[in-house]
C-alpha cells in the first residue's frame, strides 16, 4: 500500500506552492456567492537557516472565487506550482466578512478540505485581509509562518488573545453545540485614532500607540462569535478576564497594573498566575438560577511606585489585597454584564460545566443554555493571594530619603 502513495498521490516538494496563510474577505464585486480569497505563499528557500537568496520571503495573490477550495485551481493561472495547504499555519478573516450571516457557510468548507487541519488558528482582522497581509512586514522574522506561530503563542501567554481556543476545530464545536460563544484572536495593521482611557490594557488591537521602527501589526483582544457569526469584540483586558474565568483557556503569567490604595497617583504592577482552577458552582434547578464563581489568583507584586512598604506591613498588605480584589471583581462584573446584556451568551465555556447537571442530552438542549444564561444571577468572588514582592521586596522610604 505505501507503494501506491507513490503513484497517483505523488507530488514532489519543489512542485508545490505552500500556502501558509489564507485570507477571506467579502467580495467587492457585489456577487453574493463569491468571496475574496488571498493566499500567502511562502518561499521554501527561506526555511533553511543559512539561505542566501535574493528572492522575497513570500508571495501574495488575491482574487475573487466561490470558495477557498476551488480557488486552488484558479490560483494556478498565476502561480507556477501546485497549490498545497499542507503547511497552512493560519486563517484570517476580515471583521466585515465575519459579521456576515453567511460567513459560516464558507467556514465549513475547511472541513471538506483534507489538507486543512482542525487545529489551524483563526484570526479576525479589523481591515480587509489583503491589506493586512500587505502591511505585515515583521522585521525580525522573515519566515512568515514562524512569525504567526510565535506571535500567537506569546500573545496568548499574556492572556491578551485567546489562543488555545481560537482554532477551526473549536469554532466548529462551539458553533454546533450552540451553547457558548466562540472567541477568535483579533488583530490589525491599522492604527486606530480612537483613544480609550489611559489605563494599560483596556485596548483593542490597533489602539496601542507605539513609535520606533517595527511592524505595524498588533494582536490584542478577541472577536466574539455566536452561532458562527461575529457579534462583537472583547478588549485585551476583557479577554484576560475571560481567560481567568474559563478553565479551558490556558494562560501563562500575566502582568497587570492595579490602583494603589494608598496613593492614587500611582499604579502597582503585579504578575498574575492562576494556579488552581476557577471554581464554578451552578444551581440551575432553582426558578432563579445562580452561578457562584470563585477565582483564585496568585499575585507577585513587582512595582510599587508609591514606595510604600508593603512587604513588612501586614495591615497595608491586607488593604492592598482588598483593593485589588475589589478592582478585579469590578472588571469581572462589568464583563459578565456585557456578556449578559450585549452578547446574550457566555464565552467562558460554562455551558459544558452546566451539562453536568443534566442527565440526558435532550434535557440539556431543552434547557437551552444560550437563552437562559442572560437571566442567571452570577456572583463573582475573587480570592487574591499575594506571593512575593519581586526580586527585592523592600523599597526605600522616599520621604525619609529625600529629607
Amino acid at each position: 500500500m505505501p507503494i501506491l502513495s507513490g503513484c497517483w498521490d505523488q507530488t514532489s516538494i519543489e512542485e508545490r506552492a505552500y500556502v501558509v496563510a489564507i485570507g477571506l474577505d467579502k467580495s467587492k464585486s457585489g456577487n453574493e456567492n463569491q468571496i475574496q480569497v488571498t493566499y500567502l505563499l511562502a518561499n521554501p528557500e527561506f526555511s533553511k537557516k543559512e539561505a542566501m537568496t535574493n528572492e522575497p520571503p513570500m508571495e501574495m495573490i488575491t482574487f475573487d472565487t466561490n470558495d477557498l477550495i476551488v480557488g486552488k485551481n484558479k490560483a494556478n493561472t498565476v502561480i507556477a506550482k501546485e497549490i498545497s495547504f499542507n503547511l497552512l499555519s493560519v486563517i484570517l478573516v476580515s471583521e466585515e466578512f465575519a459579521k456576515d450571516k453567511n460567513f459560516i457557510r464558507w467556514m465549513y468548507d475547511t472541513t471538506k478540505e483534507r489538507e486543512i487541519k482542525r487545529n489551524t488558528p483563526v484570526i479576525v482582522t479589523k481591515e480587509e485581509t489583503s491589506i493586512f497581509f500587505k502591511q505585515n512586514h515583521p522585521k525580525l522574522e522573515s519566515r512568515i509562518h514562524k512569525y504567526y506561530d510565535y506571535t500567537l503563542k506569546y500573545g496568548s501567554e499574556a492572556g491578551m488573545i485567546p489562543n488555545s481556543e481560537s482554532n477551526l476545530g473549536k469554532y466548529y464545536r462551539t458553533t454546533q453545540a450552540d451553547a457558548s460563544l466562540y472567541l477568535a484572536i483579533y488583530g490589525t495593521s491599522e492604527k486606530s485614532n480612537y483613544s480609550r482611557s489611559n489605563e494599560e490594557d483596556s485596548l483593542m488591537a490597533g489602539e496601542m500607540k507605539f513609535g520606533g521602527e517595527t511592524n505595524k501589526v498588533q494582536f490584542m483582544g478577541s472577536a466574539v462569535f455566536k452561532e458562527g457569526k461575529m457579534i462583537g469584540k472583547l478588549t485585551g483586558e476583557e479577554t484576560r478576564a475571560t481567560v481567568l474565568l474559563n478553565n479551558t483557556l490556558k494562560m501563562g503569567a500575566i502582568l497587570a497594573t492595579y490602583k494603589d490604595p494608598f496613593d492614587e497617583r500611582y499604579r502597582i504592577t503585579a504578575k498574575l498566575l492562576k494556579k488552581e482552577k476557577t471554581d464554578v458552582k451552578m444551581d440551575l434547578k432553582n426558578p432563579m438560577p445562580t452561578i457562584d464563581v470563585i477565582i483564585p489568583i496568585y499575585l507577585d507584586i513587582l512595582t510599587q511606585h508609591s514606595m510604600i512598604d508593603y512587604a513588612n506591613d501586614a495591615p497595608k498588605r491586607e488593604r492592598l489585597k482588598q483593593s485589588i480584589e475589589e478592582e478585579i471583581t469590578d472588571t469581572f462584573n462589568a464583563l459578565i454584564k456585557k456578556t449578559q446584556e450585549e452578547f446574550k451568551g457566555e464565552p467562558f465555556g460554562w455551558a459544558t460545566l452546566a451539562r453536568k447537571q443534566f442527565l440526558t442530552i435532550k434535557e440539556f438542549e431543552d434547557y437551552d443554555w444560550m437563552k437562559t444564561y442572560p437571566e442567571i444571577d452570577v456572583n463573582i468572588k475573587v480570592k487574591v493571594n499575594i506571593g512575593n514582592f519581586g526580586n527585592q521586596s523592600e523599597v526605600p522610604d522616599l520621604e525619609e530619603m529625600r529629607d
Partner: protein
Amino acid sequence: MNSMDSTKGKIGLKELVALILLDVGTKVADDTPHTFYEAFGTAAWIGILLIGLITLIPILLLTKLIKLYQDKNLIDIILHLFGKYIGFVVLFILWIMQVFANISNSAIYTDIIGTMYFNRTPVVVIYVVLVAVAAYGAKKGVEYIGSSAWVILFWVILSLLVVLGVTFVQGEFTYIFPILGTGGWEIVKGSYNHSSLLTDFLYFGFIASNVKNVSIFNKGIWIGFSIVLLSFLLALIGYVMLFDYYGVRMFDYPYHETIRYIEIGFLTNVELLFFPFWLISSFIRFSFYLYLSALLFGALFKIKHFEYIVPALAALTMLVGLIPESAIFSMNRLRVIFLNVIAPVFLLLPCLLWITAKLKGDFKK
C-alpha cells in the same frame, strides 16, 4: 516458526488473542463509533458496556458448547445439533451474513483510505490492493493469519495507546456530560441493536478446531472479549473528550480525525505514523473474513480444500463492493439495517444451540 512443528498448524493462545483483538478491535477505527454516537450520544461508552453485558450470555453458551464438543468447530456443532437440513440453512444464513459484511466493510475501508489518505488514487486500485492482500493471507490459512496478527499486535497496541494517551491529555473531560446521552431507554434499545458489533465472536467458533485445545480457545475468547471492550470504552470516551459530542457526530471516521488533530510535541503530521499500523490490522481483518467465508462455503458445499475458493470470493467481494456510487452513505445505511437484523441472530443462535444440546442429552454424556 515454532508453532509449525509441534502443533501441526494449530494456533495457540497468543495467536488467537491477537486475531481477536485485531479483528474486532479495528472496528474502533472505522465508522462504527459514528453509529454509536448517533444512537447513544455522549453515553456511547455506557452503550458498549451494556453491549458487553448483553453478549455475555451468548458467548458464555458458545464456550460451553465448544467445551462440550471437543475437537469440533461450530460448523460441526450446528450440523450435529440441527441436523443436515436445518443446519444447512443456518450455515447458509451465516455465510450470507459474512459475505455481506465483507462487501460492506471492504467498501467502507476503501473509502477511508481514499478520502483520508490517498485522494487521487482511483478507488478501484485501492480496492484491488486491499482485496489482493486479503486473499493472499486467506489462502495461506488461519495459522498464517494468526501468526501475522501476533507479530504486529504489539505495534498496533502501542500506537493505539499513544493515540488514546494523547487524547486524554489534550481533551476535556467535561465533554462527557450529560452522562446519560440520549436517555436511558434509548441506550438500552441502541445496545440491543448494536450488539451485532460482537458477532465476530460467534464466528470465532468456526476456527475452534484450529486452536490447540479447548481451554486455550475459551481463555482466548474471554481475554479477547475483555480487551476489546476496554479499548472500545477508552476510545469512545477519548473521541468525545477531544471533539465533544457535537463535533464527533459529524465525523465519519473519528479515529482518523483524531490522529490528524493531535500533536505530539513538535511532530505535527503524526497521522502518517499511525496509518501504517491501522492499515496492517485492516489487512489482517479482511484476510480473516475472506478465510471465514471460504470456510463456510466449503462446509456448505462439501469442498475440502476451500482455500481455492478464496480468490473467487475475493473477486466477488470487490466487484459487488464497487457497485454503489458513494460508499459512505449507501453502505452506512445498509450496514445499520444489516446490523440491526443480525443482532437477534447473534444473540439467539448460541442459546438455541445450547438448548438443543441440553435436550439431546449431550451434556450428560
